[in-house]
């Protein structure tokens, strides 16, 4: 399969994806097998889990949640969550087709998370780091006041403890329901990165499927080192918005990690299976 075929297939797969993911969650009777949304091979769910949610056949990297990510990256039981007490509210009394408050409750009961990011400290192959790990399952990983505050707090903690900071992003962008307050989180978190800079703290971004909008235009791309997970889609504007604006269709590999590498925006592309080692290497090579 050429890379072009691969991307074409992937594009088709994205349409089937939501469906498939729904099935995986909703079919009531759990099946031992699942069909890969990318290569369409039947794979054992256990194999997929075992393989870090990467298709053993085609290497498609499934999106994973923050809890799984922490388990994969950090040394056993080393991760200690911080700032869990910071919780969302509804400052603008925002109502669209559904009140924001209800959306927050639904997100909480769906994910058992308090917000779209988990922050804390832990060790990766012995290297002590501060980290923010986003979770797309909570309102598309969108950044409102809580995400902005928690990310800022953990960066301040990194400065205080003089340990490296790692941000692992997965987000559609800003939290529209908080409007300008959400926009300001871009400024707030970017200013916090300025403090990391001034303190000489190593800051690493890990961009995972998907990272867009307000995240790429703030703390998500300000790392000293930017690592992108293989195949992850990363961009400022959404694909559909761009297609509507320029009135032409986009190349299949547009906004993939590999595309961004070619255009000089990421340092390193990593398979999920190699990420922990690569992070440890990068940390070692900075003497931290």
């Amino acid at each position: 399969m050429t890379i072009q075929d691969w991307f074409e297939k992937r594009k088709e797969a994205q349409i089937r994806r939501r469906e498939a993911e729904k099935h995986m969650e909703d079919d009531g009777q759990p099946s031992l097998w699942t069909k890969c949304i990318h290569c369409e091979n039947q794979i054992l769910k256990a194999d997929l889990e075992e393989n870090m949610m990467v298709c053993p056949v085609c290497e498609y990297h499934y999106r994973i949640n923050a809890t799984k990510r922490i388990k994969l990256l950090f040394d056993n039981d080393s991760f200690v969550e911080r700032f869990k007490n910071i919780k969302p509210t509804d400052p603008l009394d925002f109502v669209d087709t559904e009140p924001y408050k209800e959306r927050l409750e639904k997100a909480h009961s769906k994910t058992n998370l308090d917000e779209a990011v988990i922050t804390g400290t832990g060790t990766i192959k012995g290297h002590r780091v501060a980290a923010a790990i986003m979770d797309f399952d909570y309102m598309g990983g969108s950044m409102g006041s809580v995400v902005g505050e928690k990310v800022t707090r953990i960066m301040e903690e990194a400065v205080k403890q003089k340990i490296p900071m790692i941000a692992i992003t997965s987000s559609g962008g800003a939290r529209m329901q908080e409007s300008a307050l959400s926009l300001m989180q871009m400024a707030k978190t970017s200013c916090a990165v300025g403090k990391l800079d001034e303190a000489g703290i190593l800051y690493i971004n890990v961009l995972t499927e998907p990272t867009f909008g307000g995240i790429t235009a703030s703390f998500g791309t300000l790392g000293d080192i930017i690592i992108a997970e293989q195949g992850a889609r990363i961009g400022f504007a959404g694909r559909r918005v761009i297609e509507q604006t320029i009135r032409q269709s986009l190349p299949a590999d547009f906004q993939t990690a590999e595309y961004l590498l070619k255009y000089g925006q990421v340092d390193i592309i990593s398979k999920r299976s190699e990420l922990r080692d690569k992070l440890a290497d990068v940390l070692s090579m900075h003497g931290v």
Partner: protein
Amino acid sequence: MTVLEFEKPILEIQKKIDEFKKMSMESGMDFNGEIESLEKQANEIKKEMYESLKPSQKLQIARHSERPNFLDYTHMMCENFIELHGDREGADDRAIIGGLATIAGRNVVLIGTQKGKSTKENLEYNFGMPQPQGYRKALRLFKHAEKFKLPIITLIDTPGAYPGITAEQTGQGIAIAVNLREMSKLTVPVIAVITGEGCSGGALGLAVANRVFMLEYAYYTVISPEGCASILWRDAAKAADAADALKITADDLLKYGIIDGKIKEPLGGAHTNPQDMSDRLKNALIGALEELDSYSPDELKAQRYSKFRGMGVFNE
């Protein structure tokens, strides 16, 4: 001049006034009483109307095709303006213009997004939607200001950063993010004014300032009401609802502490009297510059940082 839908009642009265005037001329009869009364009436309706505009109506004024743009203000406000071109790396994005300016005897670096008024101009300025190269030009000028201790003023009127292929290829997100971070490190006074549209990261990329002002009918938001409506309501026609929900007006944002001040517009909006608007803007800028004179470089940086550090509402 383009007349907006909600302005039509006033236009009707104005027509009546013009008729009386014409009759007065032609017949030699005295309609001064009628004219005066109608003019008074028109003015009262106008005042009332403009004081109770809905967000979606303000949006229309903010987007008015004859609204004064960056270069208009520059010409009206500055004793001298020398444009400084380019990012020194291959591009001179025309959607962001900047340079050295003298305003009321003070030397500053003045930067803003530029919109056109004709199709030709709109193409030249890309409808006020900057490319990454525009943000990098702005950053170069920020650093120039920092080096020579010149205050920075930014005037913002943009529907957002341009969503295009080369914009993505050349790092639209990174360019904005870098500006946010670097603006927070500046030790000179930074004043930002949303003069029209202040849409999402594309506006914020010039607005990490010590003082952020909005013109009375400008709007400032994380996403355009149309974009928000088409995502949340799955119907772009619900833009007016989204405009309400998003709390995009100067009054709203003052209330939430997002901005520091509102600059009143002439009755009917900035486009009805650009020179008056420019004078009001200039006064606000001079006032802010004088106010910020009392801060030391370190205080300016610290004030700006803590201002944005404090943004956000949550439970703890």
